[in-house]
């Protein structure tokens, strides 16, 4: 059916989701690294693949797929390998519910804090003209607004407080969920675990006020188990810099 190419940044959040799903399925793919902090995703070469300029994207033969969660669902259905969706319809519903909750409610709060504390400052060395030129190349107006806020540190205190509230509430709900069953949404490891792990694997670092072995024993048990998975270790070994460093540091504690 043709070659598979994944256009991705680091194994983290949206880019990490299809990377890990492909790894769990045992599907070989050509990796095309997009340096998000250099704005590779808004360069003509990439816009020719995905005119929206969002990452990740995957090509499979002539087909082009975007949106990390939807790509994962495609990967699970289109390729052989272990099933990453449960068979029971109610479990399948629950997997989808958790992925939407992360993608649209909890995830944007994680990323607002991440952009504010890491991505924005990492672009601070660029001049205002350089930053404006980078913004001007972004195809989607919504993404332009989001990047502007990150680049020029325009997040309001109220917005950041709301994101922190959601993170703390979301962690509480995840803890409750993982008290009901061994994995997120079902009794077996699924796309929901891949999705949620990509946004929560760093919780053990610097979040002791909301996530710790004492406060959130179920999340801790689940993280430890997912960290040990061979596909997870292979995926994070493909990363560079702080993402893999952070993973390795937590892994040492769990070992």
């Amino acid at each position, binding site marked *: 059916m043709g070659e598979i190419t994944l256009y991705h940044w680091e194994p983290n959040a949206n880019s990490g989701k299809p990377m890990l799903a492909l790894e769990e399925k045992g599907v070989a793919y050509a990796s095309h690294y997009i340096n998000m902090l250099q704005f590779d995703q808004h360069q003509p070469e990439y816009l020719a693949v995905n005119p929206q300029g969002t990452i990740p994207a995957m090509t499979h033969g002539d*087909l082009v*797929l*975007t*949106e990390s969660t*939807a*790509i994962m*669902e*495609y990967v699970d*259905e*289109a390729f052989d390998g272990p099933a990453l969706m449960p068979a029971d*319809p*109610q479990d*399948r*519903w*629950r997997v*989808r*519910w958790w992925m*939407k*909750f992360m993608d*649209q*409610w909890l995830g*944007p709060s994680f990323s*607002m804090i991440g952009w504010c504390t890491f991505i924005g400052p990492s672009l601070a060395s660029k001049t205002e003209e350089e930053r404006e030129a980078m913004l001007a190349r972004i195809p989607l107006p*919504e*993404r332009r*607004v*989001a*990047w502007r*806020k990150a680049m020029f540190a325009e997040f309001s205190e109220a*917005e950041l407080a*709301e994101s922190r*509230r*959601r993170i703390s*509430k979301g962690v509480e*709900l995840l803890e*409750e*969920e993982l008290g*009901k069953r061994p994995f997120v949404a079902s009794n077996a490891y699924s796309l929901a675990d891949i999705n949620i792990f990509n946004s929560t694997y760093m919780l053990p670092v610097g979040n002791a006020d909301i996530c710790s072995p004492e406060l959130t024993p179920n999340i801790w048990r689940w993280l430890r188990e997912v960290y040990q998975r061979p596909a997870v270790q292979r995926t994070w070994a493909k990363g560079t810099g702080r993402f893999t460093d952070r993973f390795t540091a937590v892994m040492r504690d769990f070992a």
Partner: protein
Amino acid sequence: MSEAILYHGEPNGPSLSVLAALEESGLDIECRAIDLAAGERHGLPGVTDSMAMDYAVEGEGPVLVIDGEAMSEAVFIAQYFDEAAGGCGLQPADPYARWQMLMWCRQATERLSPAAAYLGLHASTAGDAPLDTMASEDLRERWTDWQQRRFDEAKLADSRAKVAQFAQRIEDQLDDGREWLMGSFSIADLETFAWIRSMRHLEAEAFSGKGALDAWMGRVESRPSVQAALARSTTGEPERAFAPGPEINRWG
């Protein structure tokens, strides 16, 4: 199947799409009408796991209760019906066609439905719902805004633009003469129709001169499943029934 009850509001938005999907599936599930605008969704009997009801991204949509677990999000409930029925044709079997359908539904739930819900609240009188029964702080805030009639002009303008863009998107999608949005009939037709139907009277100009959109709306509306869903209306004007929906994107 075990004990299952579908609690739904007036057949508009997510309640309309889910009621029609249930009809399409042929599953025998009891339907009970509740008043979403009175906050009745927050005190359903027999719910032992309320997480998905309390924190639904969709806001005030229908709730399917199975063995005490409250299930929310219209698109996913429709997928549940399709899969519990062993595949009733609401989702394409081909993985890529399925990806296309899911991407369409995401566009509808992330762009069209927040906009339509916001304009709908603006055009309707707030229900006198007791806010202390609602677990989600941000949903409570959308209720308060509605009850105190706090509407943001920029969000209203953005919502009108999004409804018009979506009407155009549907017209363009149907441009090749296809009968249904994804080629064959699917959840995408139900979800899109259910949200855009009420915009025909609120945002009439977004529909003018769009013959393919108009004909498609007629085809969806005349499906027996949609007729059966609309017949559940107790007010006779389901397109005027609103309750707080999904929030408008906080950023990016």
